[in-house]
């Protein structure tokens, strides 16, 4: 019953905001191997978009750097690491507060981490000032198991 996958990919790109769409669509295409629902895929795309935007706007402050994404599939789980070698976060607890932003002049809402935390199952932030930030996120994809269960029920009816 439990289909299990083992797969991994790495993506590196220049910190231009025009790459945000490329990044989230690529991760979503990779995660599609786990047969997620439309809603699960939308959640993943949104979380990736938030993390990548943070790298570009806050990590590199719109200067040129490299954003790195590692995505792994383990059983029914997507594991993501999104990192930059930018300026780092001084106060991680503060950064996680809803509506807190260091860039209100750019109309940033301060909801990035809140959205990542509510759309993914776990979010960990590692950051060293002057060296960069790494976000680790995981999300369990429930759909395959549930779909299998439904198929099974249909067969036995």
């Amino acid at each position, binding site marked *: 019953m439990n289909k299990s996958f083992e797969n991994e990919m790495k993506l590196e790109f220049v910190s231009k905001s025009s790459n*945000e769409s490329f990044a989230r669509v690529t991760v979503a295409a990779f995660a599609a191997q786990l047969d997620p629902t439309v*809603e699960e895929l939308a959640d993943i795309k949104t979380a990736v978009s938030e993390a990548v935007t943070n790298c570009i706007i806050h990590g590199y402050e719109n200067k040129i750097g490299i954003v790195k994404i590692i995505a792994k599939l383990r059983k029914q789980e997507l594991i993501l690491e999104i990192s930059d070698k930018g300026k780092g976060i001084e106060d991680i607890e503060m950064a996680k507060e*809803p509506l807190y932003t260091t860039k209100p002049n750019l109309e940033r809402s301060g909801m990035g981490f809140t959205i990542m935390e509510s759309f993914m199952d776990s979010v960990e932030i590692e950051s060293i000032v002057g060296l960069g930030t790494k976000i680790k996120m995981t999300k369990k994809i429930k759909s395959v198991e549930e779909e299998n269960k439904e198929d099974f029920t249909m067969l036995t009816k």
Partner: protein
Amino acid sequence: METFFDEKNKLLIFRMNEEIDDYKVQEIRRRADNEIQRYMPKRVIFDFDKVSFMDSAGIGLIIGRYKFANLIGGKVELANLTNSVRKIFDMSGILKLIPETEIEQYS
């Protein structure tokens, strides 16, 4: 983004038809502010019917236009929120501040 203006009712509608992220929002913001300044509307409606993706950049966009429209005496409203768009707005609490409205056809 397509713009519709109803002169009689001073109603300006932005029909969003792109993905709304930090990249796209820069152009949307610039165009929306230009149109608001040009038409000086009483009501500004953002229509999300054709939006396939939105992240937190959309929250900043709407709060920013809400403030800008207020300066010229206009009100912002939201229409046709899709499930994924609503999820983002719900989290920010702006739906308590900015009303939802219905629009059916464009003239």
